[in-house]
Protein backbone atom coordinates (compact mmCIF):
# COMPACT_ATOMS: atom_id res chain seq x y z
CA UNK A 1 0.00 0.00 0.00
CA UNK A 2 2.68 2.49 1.01
CA UNK A 3 4.68 1.47 -2.01
CA UNK A 4 1.88 2.44 -4.36
CA UNK A 5 1.51 5.89 -2.88
CA UNK A 6 5.25 6.42 -3.04
CA UNK A 7 5.34 5.65 -6.75
CA UNK A 8 2.27 7.82 -7.18
CA UNK A 9 4.11 10.73 -5.59
CA UNK A 10 7.08 10.08 -7.84
CA UNK A 11 5.20 10.79 -11.07
CA UNK A 12 6.55 13.93 -12.79
CA UNK A 13 4.38 16.97 -12.38
CA UNK A 14 3.66 17.35 -16.08
CA UNK A 15 1.84 14.02 -16.14
CA UNK A 16 -0.56 15.01 -13.39
CA UNK A 17 -3.12 16.99 -15.45
CA UNK A 18 -3.33 14.20 -18.02
CA UNK A 19 -3.83 11.64 -15.31
CA UNK A 20 -6.55 13.64 -13.65
CA UNK A 21 -8.28 14.22 -16.96
CA UNK A 22 -8.14 10.48 -17.51
CA UNK A 23 -9.59 9.98 -14.08
CA UNK A 24 -12.39 12.44 -14.74
CA UNK A 25 -13.24 10.55 -17.89
CA UNK A 26 -13.35 7.28 -15.99
CA UNK A 27 -15.62 8.84 -13.40
CA UNK A 28 -17.96 10.18 -16.08
CA UNK A 29 -18.13 6.76 -17.71
CA UNK A 30 -18.72 5.21 -14.33
CA UNK A 31 -21.74 7.43 -13.69
CA UNK A 32 -22.98 6.83 -17.21
CA UNK A 33 -22.99 3.08 -16.70
CA UNK A 34 -24.46 2.97 -13.22
CA UNK A 35 -26.68 5.99 -13.84
CA UNK A 36 -29.92 4.30 -14.92
CA UNK A 37 -29.74 1.71 -12.16
CA UNK A 38 -28.86 4.20 -9.47
CA UNK A 39 -31.53 6.65 -10.57
CA UNK A 40 -34.13 3.87 -10.59
CA UNK A 41 -33.14 2.63 -7.16
CA UNK A 42 -33.10 6.16 -5.82
CA UNK A 43 -36.51 7.18 -7.16
CA UNK A 44 -38.35 3.89 -6.65
CA UNK A 45 -36.73 2.62 -3.46
CA UNK A 46 -34.65 5.16 -1.53
CA UNK A 47 -37.15 8.04 -1.75
CA UNK A 48 -40.08 5.77 -0.82
CA UNK A 49 -38.18 4.54 2.24
CA UNK A 50 -37.72 8.10 3.43
CA UNK A 51 -41.34 8.90 2.54
CA UNK A 52 -42.74 5.92 4.40
CA UNK A 53 -40.90 6.94 7.56
CA UNK A 54 -42.35 10.43 7.24
CA UNK A 55 -45.83 9.10 6.51
CA UNK A 56 -45.71 6.77 9.50
CA UNK A 57 -46.17 9.72 11.85
CA UNK A 58 -49.18 11.13 10.04
CA UNK A 59 -52.87 10.63 9.93
CA UNK A 60 -53.56 10.73 6.21
CA UNK A 61 -55.38 9.04 3.40
CA UNK A 62 -53.93 9.35 -0.08
CA UNK A 63 -57.30 10.16 -1.61
CA UNK A 64 -57.29 13.41 0.39
CA UNK A 65 -54.81 16.01 -0.87
CA UNK A 66 -51.40 16.60 0.65
CA UNK A 67 -52.79 19.60 2.53
CA UNK A 68 -54.95 17.20 4.56
CA UNK A 69 -51.90 15.61 6.16
CA UNK A 70 -52.06 15.69 9.95
CA UNK A 71 -48.93 14.97 11.95
CA UNK A 72 -49.71 12.83 14.93
CA UNK A 73 -46.34 11.81 16.30
CA UNK A 74 -46.13 8.26 17.54
CA UNK A 75 -49.90 7.76 17.83
CA UNK A 76 -49.94 5.24 14.96
CA UNK A 77 -47.38 3.06 16.68
CA UNK A 78 -49.21 3.22 19.97
CA UNK A 79 -52.44 2.18 18.24
CA UNK A 80 -50.59 -0.50 16.31
CA UNK A 81 -49.49 -2.34 19.40
CA UNK A 82 -53.01 -2.26 20.79
CA UNK A 83 -54.57 -3.37 17.50
CA UNK A 84 -55.59 -7.03 17.88
CA UNK A 85 -55.43 -7.74 14.14
CA UNK A 86 -51.92 -6.34 13.90
CA UNK A 87 -50.78 -8.34 16.92
CA UNK A 88 -52.42 -11.43 15.46
CA UNK A 89 -50.63 -10.79 12.15
CA UNK A 90 -47.29 -10.35 13.87
CA UNK A 91 -47.87 -13.59 15.79
CA UNK A 92 -48.79 -15.41 12.58
CA UNK A 93 -45.57 -14.18 10.99
CA UNK A 94 -43.66 -15.87 13.78
CA UNK A 95 -45.72 -19.07 13.47
CA UNK A 96 -44.89 -19.12 9.77
CA UNK A 97 -41.20 -19.36 10.67
CA UNK A 98 -41.88 -22.97 11.67
CA UNK A 99 -42.15 -23.87 8.00
CA UNK A 100 -38.45 -23.07 7.52
CA UNK A 101 -36.86 -25.86 9.62
CA UNK A 102 -39.54 -28.27 8.41
CA UNK A 103 -38.76 -27.49 4.79
CA UNK A 104 -35.03 -27.63 5.50
CA UNK A 105 -35.19 -31.11 7.02
CA UNK A 106 -37.46 -32.55 4.34
CA UNK A 107 -35.45 -31.12 1.50
CA UNK A 108 -32.10 -32.14 3.00
CA UNK A 109 -33.25 -35.75 3.27
CA UNK A 110 -34.59 -35.62 -0.26
CA UNK A 111 -31.37 -34.04 -1.51
CA UNK A 112 -29.25 -36.79 0.03
CA UNK A 113 -31.39 -39.49 -1.56
CA UNK A 114 -31.46 -37.75 -4.94
CA UNK A 115 -27.74 -37.04 -4.87
CA UNK A 116 -26.54 -40.60 -4.70
CA UNK A 117 -29.24 -43.18 -4.54
CA UNK A 118 -31.58 -42.78 -7.50
CA UNK A 119 -31.72 -42.96 -11.26
CA UNK A 120 -33.23 -40.03 -13.22
CA UNK A 121 -31.96 -37.45 -10.74
CA UNK A 122 -32.52 -34.55 -13.14
CA UNK A 123 -36.12 -35.54 -13.81
CA UNK A 124 -36.86 -35.64 -10.08
CA UNK A 125 -35.25 -32.25 -9.64
CA UNK A 126 -37.75 -30.83 -12.15
CA UNK A 127 -40.66 -32.63 -10.44
CA UNK A 128 -39.97 -31.22 -7.01
CA UNK A 129 -39.15 -27.80 -8.40
CA UNK A 130 -42.46 -27.46 -10.28
CA UNK A 131 -44.50 -25.81 -7.52
CA UNK A 132 -41.79 -23.20 -6.99
CA UNK A 133 -41.80 -22.23 -10.65
CA UNK A 134 -45.60 -22.19 -10.98
CA UNK A 135 -47.62 -19.10 -10.35
CA UNK A 136 -48.71 -18.75 -6.74
CA UNK A 137 -52.08 -17.48 -7.90
CA UNK A 138 -52.76 -20.69 -9.83
CA UNK A 139 -51.46 -22.84 -6.98
CA UNK A 140 -53.62 -21.00 -4.44
CA UNK A 141 -56.74 -21.31 -6.58
CA UNK A 142 -56.18 -25.06 -7.00
CA UNK A 143 -55.68 -25.56 -3.25
CA UNK A 144 -58.80 -23.54 -2.48
CA UNK A 145 -60.80 -26.12 -4.39
CA UNK A 146 -58.87 -29.15 -3.13
CA UNK A 147 -59.40 -28.04 0.48
CA UNK A 148 -63.05 -27.10 0.00
CA UNK A 149 -64.77 -28.10 3.28
CA UNK A 150 -67.70 -30.08 1.88
CA UNK A 151 -66.96 -31.33 -1.63
CA UNK A 152 -63.18 -30.81 -1.95
CA UNK A 153 -61.27 -33.98 -2.85
CA UNK A 154 -59.18 -33.82 0.34
CA UNK A 155 -62.19 -34.02 2.65
CA UNK A 156 -64.01 -36.50 0.42
CA UNK A 157 -61.00 -38.77 0.74
CA UNK A 158 -60.86 -38.24 4.50
CA UNK A 159 -64.57 -39.02 4.88
CA UNK A 160 -64.27 -42.17 2.82
CA UNK A 161 -61.34 -43.21 5.03
CA UNK A 162 -63.68 -42.98 7.99
CA UNK A 163 -62.82 -39.55 9.38
CA UNK A 164 -66.24 -38.45 10.61
CA UNK A 165 -65.71 -34.75 10.97
CA UNK A 166 -62.77 -33.62 8.88
CA UNK A 167 -61.43 -30.09 9.53
CA UNK A 168 -62.76 -27.29 7.36
CA UNK A 169 -59.15 -26.34 6.48
CA UNK A 170 -59.01 -22.85 4.99
CA UNK A 171 -62.49 -22.03 6.28
CA UNK A 172 -61.67 -23.00 9.86
CA UNK A 173 -59.95 -20.49 12.14
CA UNK A 174 -58.01 -23.30 13.84
CA UNK A 175 -56.78 -24.99 10.69
CA UNK A 176 -56.40 -22.14 8.20
CA UNK A 177 -52.87 -21.14 9.22
CA UNK A 178 -51.72 -24.76 9.33
CA UNK A 179 -53.12 -25.25 5.83
CA UNK A 180 -51.27 -22.17 4.60
CA UNK A 181 -48.08 -23.48 6.19
CA UNK A 182 -48.41 -26.88 4.54
CA UNK A 183 -48.88 -25.25 1.15
CA UNK A 184 -45.91 -22.99 1.83
CA UNK A 185 -43.71 -26.02 2.57
CA UNK A 186 -44.94 -27.71 -0.60
CA UNK A 187 -44.17 -24.61 -2.67
CA UNK A 188 -40.69 -23.95 -1.31
CA UNK A 189 -39.30 -27.47 -1.01
CA UNK A 190 -37.94 -27.31 -4.58
CA UNK A 191 -35.93 -24.18 -3.89
CA UNK A 192 -34.35 -25.66 -0.75
CA UNK A 193 -33.69 -28.90 -2.57
CA UNK A 194 -31.77 -27.22 -5.39
CA UNK A 195 -29.62 -25.28 -2.94
CA UNK A 196 -28.90 -28.39 -0.85
CA UNK A 197 -28.00 -30.40 -3.95
CA UNK A 198 -25.53 -27.68 -4.93
CA UNK A 199 -24.12 -27.76 -1.40
CA UNK A 200 -23.70 -31.54 -1.47
CA UNK A 201 -21.64 -31.27 -4.65
CA UNK A 202 -19.07 -29.26 -2.72
CA UNK A 203 -18.37 -31.87 -0.06
CA UNK A 204 -15.12 -33.67 -0.95
CA UNK A 205 -15.75 -37.36 -1.63
CA UNK A 206 -12.58 -38.52 0.14
CA UNK A 207 -14.08 -37.46 3.47
CA UNK A 208 -16.72 -40.15 3.08
CA UNK A 209 -14.16 -42.64 1.85
CA UNK A 210 -11.93 -42.20 4.86
CA UNK A 211 -14.99 -42.42 7.11
CA UNK A 212 -15.81 -45.73 5.39
CA UNK A 213 -12.33 -46.99 6.18
CA UNK A 214 -12.85 -46.02 9.81
CA UNK A 215 -16.03 -48.09 9.75
CA UNK A 216 -18.46 -45.21 10.26
CA UNK A 217 -22.12 -45.99 9.62
CA UNK A 218 -24.50 -43.89 7.54
CA UNK A 219 -25.91 -41.97 10.52
CA UNK A 220 -22.42 -41.21 11.74
CA UNK A 221 -21.34 -39.88 8.37
CA UNK A 222 -24.50 -37.79 8.16
CA UNK A 223 -23.91 -36.31 11.63
CA UNK A 224 -20.21 -35.64 11.41
CA UNK A 225 -19.61 -34.91 7.72
CA UNK A 226 -22.77 -33.94 5.85
CA UNK A 227 -24.43 -31.71 8.44
CA UNK A 228 -21.36 -29.68 9.50
CA UNK A 229 -20.07 -29.24 5.97
CA UNK A 230 -23.50 -28.11 4.82
CA UNK A 231 -23.78 -25.54 7.60
CA UNK A 232 -23.06 -22.56 5.31
CA UNK A 233 -25.81 -23.80 2.99
CA UNK A 234 -28.22 -24.34 5.88
CA UNK A 235 -27.39 -20.94 7.23
CA UNK A 236 -28.05 -19.31 3.87
CA UNK A 237 -31.40 -21.10 3.64
CA UNK A 238 -32.33 -20.16 7.18
CA UNK A 239 -31.57 -16.49 6.63
CA UNK A 240 -33.29 -16.20 3.26
CA UNK A 241 -36.14 -18.28 4.66
CA UNK A 242 -36.67 -15.94 7.60
CA UNK A 243 -36.35 -12.79 5.50
CA UNK A 244 -38.75 -14.07 2.85
CA UNK A 245 -41.28 -15.49 5.25
CA UNK A 246 -42.01 -11.91 6.30
CA UNK A 247 -42.77 -11.14 2.66
CA UNK A 248 -45.32 -13.87 1.93
CA UNK A 249 -48.12 -11.94 0.32
CA UNK A 250 -49.44 -13.57 -2.86
CA UNK A 251 -50.28 -16.88 -1.23
CA UNK A 252 -52.25 -15.29 1.61
CA UNK A 253 -53.89 -12.65 -0.57
CA UNK A 254 -55.28 -15.21 -3.02
CA UNK A 255 -55.83 -18.16 -0.69
CA UNK A 256 -57.50 -16.61 2.37
CA UNK A 257 -57.28 -12.80 2.18
CA UNK A 258 -56.09 -13.02 5.78
CA UNK A 259 -59.28 -14.78 6.92
CA UNK A 260 -61.22 -16.38 8.37
CA UNK A 261 -61.43 -13.77 11.15
CA UNK A 262 -57.83 -12.64 10.71
CA UNK A 263 -56.51 -16.12 11.49
CA UNK A 264 -54.09 -16.10 8.53
CA UNK A 265 -53.34 -12.40 8.38
CA UNK A 266 -49.67 -11.42 8.27
CA UNK A 267 -48.05 -8.00 8.54
CA UNK A 268 -47.67 -7.46 4.81
CA UNK A 269 -51.26 -8.49 4.17
CA UNK A 270 -52.66 -6.29 6.92
CA UNK A 271 -50.49 -3.46 5.60
CA UNK A 272 -51.95 -3.92 2.11
CA UNK A 273 -55.48 -4.18 3.47
CA UNK A 274 -55.14 -1.03 5.57
CA UNK A 275 -53.51 0.98 2.79
CA UNK A 276 -55.55 -0.03 -0.24
CA UNK A 277 -58.87 -1.30 1.07
CA UNK A 278 -59.31 0.89 4.14
CA UNK A 279 -57.30 3.80 2.74
CA UNK A 280 -55.39 4.44 5.97
CA UNK A 281 -52.14 5.59 4.43
CA UNK A 282 -50.49 6.84 7.62
CA UNK A 283 -51.44 3.80 9.66
CA UNK A 284 -50.22 1.40 6.96
CA UNK A 285 -46.95 3.32 6.78
CA UNK A 286 -46.35 2.76 10.46
CA UNK A 287 -46.67 -0.98 9.80
CA UNK A 288 -44.14 -0.61 7.01
CA UNK A 289 -41.73 0.98 9.47
CA UNK A 290 -42.19 -1.91 11.89
CA UNK A 291 -41.50 -4.27 8.99
CA UNK A 292 -38.34 -2.34 8.11
CA UNK A 293 -37.13 -2.47 11.70
CA UNK A 294 -37.81 -6.22 11.87
CA UNK A 295 -35.84 -6.74 8.65
CA UNK A 296 -32.95 -4.72 10.01
CA UNK A 297 -32.97 -6.70 13.25
CA UNK A 298 -32.96 -10.01 11.39
CA UNK A 299 -30.05 -8.88 9.24
CA UNK A 300 -28.17 -7.79 12.34
CA UNK A 301 -28.79 -11.13 14.04
CA UNK A 302 -27.59 -12.86 10.89
CA UNK A 303 -24.22 -11.10 11.14
CA UNK A 304 -23.83 -12.12 14.75
CA UNK A 305 -24.92 -15.70 14.25
CA UNK A 306 -22.74 -16.17 11.20
CA UNK A 307 -19.61 -15.74 13.27
CA UNK A 308 -20.80 -18.22 15.86
CA UNK A 309 -21.92 -21.36 14.21
CA UNK A 310 -21.15 -21.46 10.55
CA UNK A 311 -18.33 -23.76 9.61
CA UNK A 312 -16.76 -22.27 6.49
CA UNK A 313 -14.09 -24.47 5.04
Amino acid at each position, binding site marked *: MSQISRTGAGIPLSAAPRRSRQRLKETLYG*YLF*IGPMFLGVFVFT*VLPILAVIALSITDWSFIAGLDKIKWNGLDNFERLFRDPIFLKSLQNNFYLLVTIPVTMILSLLLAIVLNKHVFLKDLFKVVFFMPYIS*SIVAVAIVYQVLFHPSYGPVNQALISLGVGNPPKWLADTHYALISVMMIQVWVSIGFYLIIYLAGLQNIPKDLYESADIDGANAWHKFRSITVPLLSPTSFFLLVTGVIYSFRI*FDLIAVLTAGGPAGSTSVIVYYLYDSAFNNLKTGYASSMAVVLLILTLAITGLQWLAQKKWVNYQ
Partner: protein
Amino acid sequence: MTEQTAATKRTVPFGKIAWTVLVAILGIVFLLPFLWMVSTSFKLEADVFNYPIEWIPSTWNAVQNYTDVWNGQYPFAHYYWNTIKVTLATTAISVCVSSMAAYGFSVIRFRGRGVLFMVVLATYMVPAQAILVPQFVLYRWLGLFDSHFGLVLLGSFSVFGTFMLRQFFLGLHPEYLESAKLDGAGHIRTFVSIALPLVKPAVATYAILRFIWTWNDYQNPLIFLRSDGLYTLQLAMRKFADMYTQHYALIMAGTVSAIVPLLVIFVVGQKQVIEGISFGGVKG
Protein backbone atom coordinates in the same frame (compact mmCIF):
# COMPACT_ATOMS: atom_id res chain seq x y z
CA MET B 1 -20.20 -56.44 4.86
CA THR B 2 -17.48 -55.85 2.29
CA GLU B 3 -18.36 -59.09 0.55
CA GLN B 4 -21.93 -57.99 0.30
CA THR B 5 -21.11 -54.58 -1.25
CA ALA B 6 -18.82 -56.24 -3.74
CA ALA B 7 -21.59 -58.63 -4.69
CA THR B 8 -24.21 -55.91 -5.18
CA LYS B 9 -21.79 -53.91 -7.28
CA ARG B 10 -21.44 -56.73 -9.73
CA THR B 11 -25.14 -57.44 -10.05
CA VAL B 12 -28.21 -55.23 -10.36
CA PRO B 13 -28.17 -52.23 -7.99
CA PHE B 14 -31.34 -53.22 -6.11
CA GLY B 15 -30.91 -50.51 -3.52
CA LYS B 16 -30.83 -47.81 -6.16
CA ILE B 17 -33.87 -49.24 -7.93
CA ALA B 18 -35.80 -49.37 -4.66
CA TRP B 19 -34.95 -45.76 -3.85
CA THR B 20 -35.91 -44.67 -7.36
CA VAL B 21 -39.31 -46.36 -7.06
CA LEU B 22 -39.85 -44.81 -3.65
CA VAL B 23 -38.93 -41.32 -4.82
CA ALA B 24 -41.06 -41.77 -7.94
CA ILE B 25 -44.11 -42.56 -5.78
CA LEU B 26 -43.31 -39.56 -3.60
CA GLY B 27 -42.97 -37.42 -6.72
CA ILE B 28 -46.37 -38.49 -8.03
CA VAL B 29 -48.03 -37.75 -4.69
CA PHE B 30 -46.22 -34.42 -4.67
CA LEU B 31 -47.63 -33.54 -8.07
CA LEU B 32 -51.20 -34.70 -7.35
CA PRO B 33 -52.52 -31.11 -7.10
CA PHE B 34 -51.20 -30.46 -10.61
CA LEU B 35 -52.57 -33.74 -11.94
CA TRP B 36 -55.95 -32.94 -10.41
CA MET B 37 -55.86 -29.48 -11.97
CA VAL B 38 -55.10 -30.81 -15.44
CA SER B 39 -57.64 -33.61 -15.28
CA THR B 40 -60.36 -31.29 -13.95
CA SER B 41 -59.73 -28.84 -16.77
CA PHE B 42 -60.81 -31.59 -19.21
CA LYS B 43 -64.02 -32.50 -17.38
CA LEU B 44 -67.68 -31.68 -17.56
CA GLU B 45 -68.61 -29.37 -14.70
CA ALA B 46 -70.99 -31.98 -13.28
CA ASP B 47 -68.19 -34.54 -12.97
CA VAL B 48 -65.65 -32.37 -11.17
CA PHE B 49 -66.36 -33.57 -7.66
CA ASN B 50 -67.24 -37.18 -8.39
CA TYR B 51 -65.72 -39.49 -5.84
CA PRO B 52 -63.62 -41.61 -6.14
CA ILE B 53 -61.74 -39.04 -8.18
CA GLU B 54 -61.88 -39.70 -11.92
CA TRP B 55 -58.28 -38.96 -12.88
CA ILE B 56 -59.19 -39.72 -16.47
CA PRO B 57 -62.45 -37.89 -17.26
CA SER B 58 -65.44 -40.14 -17.98
CA THR B 59 -66.80 -37.49 -20.36
CA TRP B 60 -64.36 -35.21 -22.09
CA ASN B 61 -65.18 -31.53 -22.29
CA ALA B 62 -61.70 -30.16 -22.93
CA VAL B 63 -62.36 -28.27 -26.16
CA GLN B 64 -65.41 -26.50 -24.74
CA ASN B 65 -63.62 -25.53 -21.49
CA TYR B 66 -60.53 -24.16 -23.14
CA THR B 67 -62.52 -22.29 -25.81
CA ASP B 68 -64.59 -20.66 -23.07
CA VAL B 69 -61.47 -19.59 -21.23
CA TRP B 70 -59.65 -18.24 -24.25
CA ASN B 71 -62.57 -16.57 -25.98
CA GLY B 72 -65.19 -16.05 -23.28
CA GLN B 73 -66.15 -13.02 -21.27
CA TYR B 74 -62.61 -12.75 -19.86
CA PRO B 75 -60.61 -13.70 -22.94
CA PHE B 76 -57.29 -15.16 -21.84
CA ALA B 77 -55.87 -14.43 -25.28
CA HIS B 78 -56.03 -10.73 -24.44
CA TYR B 79 -54.43 -11.17 -21.00
CA TYR B 80 -51.76 -13.38 -22.50
CA TRP B 81 -50.85 -10.62 -24.86
CA ASN B 82 -50.70 -8.09 -21.98
CA THR B 83 -48.51 -10.42 -19.95
CA ILE B 84 -46.17 -11.17 -22.83
CA LYS B 85 -45.76 -7.45 -23.53
CA VAL B 86 -45.06 -6.52 -19.91
CA THR B 87 -42.80 -9.52 -19.29
CA LEU B 88 -40.67 -9.09 -22.40
CA ALA B 89 -40.27 -5.35 -21.90
CA THR B 90 -39.37 -5.74 -18.23
CA THR B 91 -36.88 -8.48 -18.97
CA ALA B 92 -35.20 -6.55 -21.78
CA ILE B 93 -34.92 -3.27 -19.89
CA SER B 94 -33.87 -4.94 -16.66
CA VAL B 95 -31.12 -6.93 -18.38
CA CYS B 96 -29.76 -3.74 -20.01
CA VAL B 97 -29.89 -1.64 -16.84
CA SER B 98 -28.43 -4.35 -14.62
CA SER B 99 -25.62 -5.40 -16.92
CA MET B 100 -24.58 -1.78 -17.48
CA ALA B 101 -24.56 -1.10 -13.75
CA ALA B 102 -22.74 -4.37 -13.11
CA TYR B 103 -20.02 -3.33 -15.57
CA GLY B 104 -19.79 0.10 -13.98
CA PHE B 105 -19.56 -1.34 -10.49
CA SER B 106 -16.83 -3.82 -11.40
CA VAL B 107 -14.67 -2.73 -14.33
CA ILE B 108 -14.70 1.07 -14.20
CA ARG B 109 -12.80 2.64 -11.31
CA PHE B 110 -14.28 5.89 -10.15
CA ARG B 111 -14.72 7.97 -7.06
CA GLY B 112 -17.68 7.00 -4.92
CA ARG B 113 -18.13 3.58 -6.50
CA GLY B 114 -17.94 1.69 -3.23
CA VAL B 115 -20.44 3.90 -1.45
CA LEU B 116 -22.93 3.92 -4.32
CA PHE B 117 -22.72 0.14 -4.60
CA MET B 118 -23.40 -0.23 -0.89
CA VAL B 119 -26.45 2.02 -1.22
CA VAL B 120 -27.82 -0.10 -4.06
CA LEU B 121 -27.04 -3.35 -2.27
CA ALA B 122 -28.63 -2.17 0.98
CA THR B 123 -31.96 -1.64 -0.77
CA TYR B 124 -32.05 -5.36 -1.61
CA MET B 125 -32.92 -5.94 2.03
CA VAL B 126 -36.04 -3.79 1.92
CA PRO B 127 -39.27 -5.79 1.58
CA ALA B 128 -41.21 -4.57 -1.45
CA GLN B 129 -44.35 -4.25 0.69
CA ALA B 130 -42.70 -1.77 3.04
CA ILE B 131 -42.47 0.87 0.29
CA LEU B 132 -45.69 0.02 -1.53
CA VAL B 133 -47.63 2.96 -0.10
CA PRO B 134 -45.22 5.77 -1.06
CA GLN B 135 -44.59 4.09 -4.42
CA PHE B 136 -48.31 4.12 -5.05
CA VAL B 137 -48.62 7.80 -4.12
CA LEU B 138 -45.59 8.61 -6.30
CA TYR B 139 -47.08 6.69 -9.21
CA ARG B 140 -50.32 8.64 -9.01
CA TRP B 141 -48.43 11.92 -9.02
CA LEU B 142 -46.22 10.93 -11.91
CA GLY B 143 -49.15 9.60 -13.91
CA LEU B 144 -47.59 6.14 -14.04
CA PHE B 145 -50.47 4.50 -12.17
CA ASP B 146 -52.63 2.11 -14.19
CA SER B 147 -50.26 1.82 -17.15
CA HIS B 148 -48.12 -0.98 -18.51
CA PHE B 149 -45.22 1.42 -18.74
CA GLY B 150 -45.34 2.08 -15.02
CA LEU B 151 -45.54 -1.62 -14.28
CA VAL B 152 -42.53 -2.32 -16.49
CA LEU B 153 -40.57 0.44 -14.80
CA LEU B 154 -41.17 -1.12 -11.37
CA GLY B 155 -39.48 -4.35 -12.41
CA SER B 156 -36.62 -2.76 -14.29
CA PHE B 157 -34.15 -1.92 -11.54
CA SER B 158 -33.04 -5.19 -10.09
CA VAL B 159 -30.44 -5.25 -7.37
CA PHE B 160 -30.19 -9.01 -7.65
CA GLY B 161 -29.43 -8.81 -11.39
CA THR B 162 -26.81 -6.14 -10.82
CA PHE B 163 -25.17 -8.05 -8.00
CA MET B 164 -25.12 -11.35 -9.85
CA LEU B 165 -23.75 -9.96 -13.13
CA ARG B 166 -21.19 -7.92 -11.22
CA GLN B 167 -19.83 -11.12 -9.70
CA PHE B 168 -19.37 -12.51 -13.20
CA PHE B 169 -17.66 -9.37 -14.50
CA LEU B 170 -15.31 -9.50 -11.51
CA GLY B 171 -14.50 -13.09 -12.44
CA LEU B 172 -13.35 -12.12 -15.94
CA HIS B 173 -9.66 -12.24 -16.61
CA PRO B 174 -8.45 -8.61 -16.46
CA GLU B 175 -6.20 -9.20 -19.47
CA TYR B 176 -9.17 -9.44 -21.83
CA LEU B 177 -10.38 -6.01 -20.84
CA GLU B 178 -6.87 -4.52 -20.65
CA SER B 179 -6.03 -5.56 -24.19
CA ALA B 180 -9.20 -3.89 -25.41
CA LYS B 181 -8.14 -0.74 -23.64
CA LEU B 182 -4.72 -0.87 -25.28
CA ASP B 183 -6.43 -1.19 -28.65
CA GLY B 184 -8.01 2.15 -27.89
CA ALA B 185 -11.51 0.84 -27.22
CA GLY B 186 -13.58 3.00 -24.91
CA HIS B 187 -15.78 1.59 -22.18
CA ILE B 188 -18.85 1.44 -24.39
CA ARG B 189 -17.10 -0.69 -26.99
CA THR B 190 -15.38 -2.87 -24.40
CA PHE B 191 -18.71 -3.43 -22.69
CA VAL B 192 -20.71 -4.26 -25.80
CA SER B 193 -18.22 -6.28 -27.79
CA ILE B 194 -15.97 -7.89 -25.17
CA ALA B 195 -17.31 -7.95 -21.63
CA LEU B 196 -20.96 -8.71 -22.38
CA PRO B 197 -20.32 -11.62 -24.77
CA LEU B 198 -18.00 -13.16 -22.17
CA VAL B 199 -20.74 -13.28 -19.54
CA LYS B 200 -23.51 -14.33 -21.93
CA PRO B 201 -24.47 -17.44 -19.91
CA ALA B 202 -24.95 -15.33 -16.78
CA VAL B 203 -27.04 -12.82 -18.73
CA ALA B 204 -29.20 -15.68 -20.03
CA THR B 205 -29.62 -17.01 -16.51
CA TYR B 206 -30.71 -13.66 -15.19
CA ALA B 207 -33.01 -13.02 -18.16
CA ILE B 208 -34.84 -16.32 -17.64
CA LEU B 209 -35.26 -15.71 -13.92
CA ARG B 210 -36.54 -12.19 -14.52
CA PHE B 211 -38.96 -13.52 -17.13
CA ILE B 212 -40.39 -16.11 -14.74
CA TRP B 213 -40.65 -13.67 -11.82
CA THR B 214 -42.37 -11.04 -13.94
CA TRP B 215 -44.74 -13.54 -15.53
CA ASN B 216 -45.78 -14.80 -12.09
CA ASP B 217 -45.92 -11.42 -10.40
CA TYR B 218 -49.26 -10.78 -8.73
CA GLN B 219 -48.52 -8.05 -6.23
CA ASN B 220 -47.42 -5.24 -8.55
CA PRO B 221 -50.23 -5.66 -11.10
CA LEU B 222 -52.72 -5.88 -8.21
CA ILE B 223 -51.65 -2.54 -6.82
CA PHE B 224 -50.51 -0.57 -9.84
CA LEU B 225 -53.16 -1.55 -12.39
CA ARG B 226 -56.85 -0.76 -12.20
CA SER B 227 -58.43 -1.12 -15.67
CA ASP B 228 -59.66 -4.60 -16.64
CA GLY B 229 -58.22 -4.17 -20.12
CA LEU B 230 -54.68 -3.81 -18.78
CA TYR B 231 -54.79 -6.87 -16.51
CA THR B 232 -52.02 -9.41 -16.66
CA LEU B 233 -52.67 -13.13 -16.58
CA GLN B 234 -52.24 -13.45 -12.81
CA LEU B 235 -54.79 -10.74 -12.08
CA ALA B 236 -57.15 -12.04 -14.73
CA MET B 237 -56.93 -15.55 -13.32
CA ARG B 238 -57.93 -14.27 -9.91
CA LYS B 239 -60.77 -12.21 -11.35
CA PHE B 240 -61.89 -15.19 -13.38
CA ALA B 241 -61.94 -17.45 -10.32
CA ASP B 242 -64.03 -14.85 -8.47
CA MET B 243 -66.49 -14.46 -11.34
CA TYR B 244 -66.97 -18.15 -12.09
CA THR B 245 -67.06 -19.42 -8.51
CA GLN B 246 -68.99 -22.56 -9.33
CA HIS B 247 -67.28 -23.32 -12.66
CA TYR B 248 -64.33 -25.31 -11.44
CA ALA B 249 -63.54 -26.99 -14.75
CA LEU B 250 -63.25 -23.58 -16.38
CA ILE B 251 -61.15 -22.18 -13.56
CA MET B 252 -58.75 -25.11 -13.85
CA ALA B 253 -58.53 -24.64 -17.62
CA GLY B 254 -57.49 -21.08 -16.80
CA THR B 255 -54.82 -22.06 -14.30
CA VAL B 256 -53.43 -24.71 -16.66
CA SER B 257 -53.21 -22.07 -19.39
CA ALA B 258 -51.34 -19.75 -17.06
CA ILE B 259 -48.82 -22.34 -15.91
CA VAL B 260 -48.01 -24.18 -19.14
CA PRO B 261 -45.87 -21.54 -20.90
CA LEU B 262 -43.71 -21.19 -17.83
CA LEU B 263 -43.22 -24.92 -17.57
CA VAL B 264 -42.06 -24.97 -21.17
CA ILE B 265 -39.58 -22.18 -20.46
CA PHE B 266 -38.43 -23.93 -17.32
CA VAL B 267 -37.85 -27.24 -19.07
CA VAL B 268 -35.96 -25.53 -21.91
CA GLY B 269 -33.91 -23.24 -19.66
CA GLN B 270 -33.65 -25.67 -16.76
CA LYS B 271 -29.90 -25.38 -16.47
CA GLN B 272 -30.01 -21.59 -16.30
CA VAL B 273 -32.87 -21.52 -13.83
CA ILE B 274 -31.16 -23.92 -11.47
CA GLU B 275 -27.87 -22.07 -11.79
CA GLY B 276 -29.52 -18.74 -11.01
CA ILE B 277 -31.42 -20.19 -8.09
CA SER B 278 -28.22 -21.75 -6.72
CA PHE B 279 -26.66 -18.32 -6.94
CA GLY B 280 -29.13 -17.17 -4.35
CA GLY B 281 -31.80 -15.96 -6.70
CA VAL B 282 -34.80 -15.39 -4.52
CA LYS B 283 -37.13 -13.07 -6.34
CA GLY B 284 -35.75 -9.51 -6.25
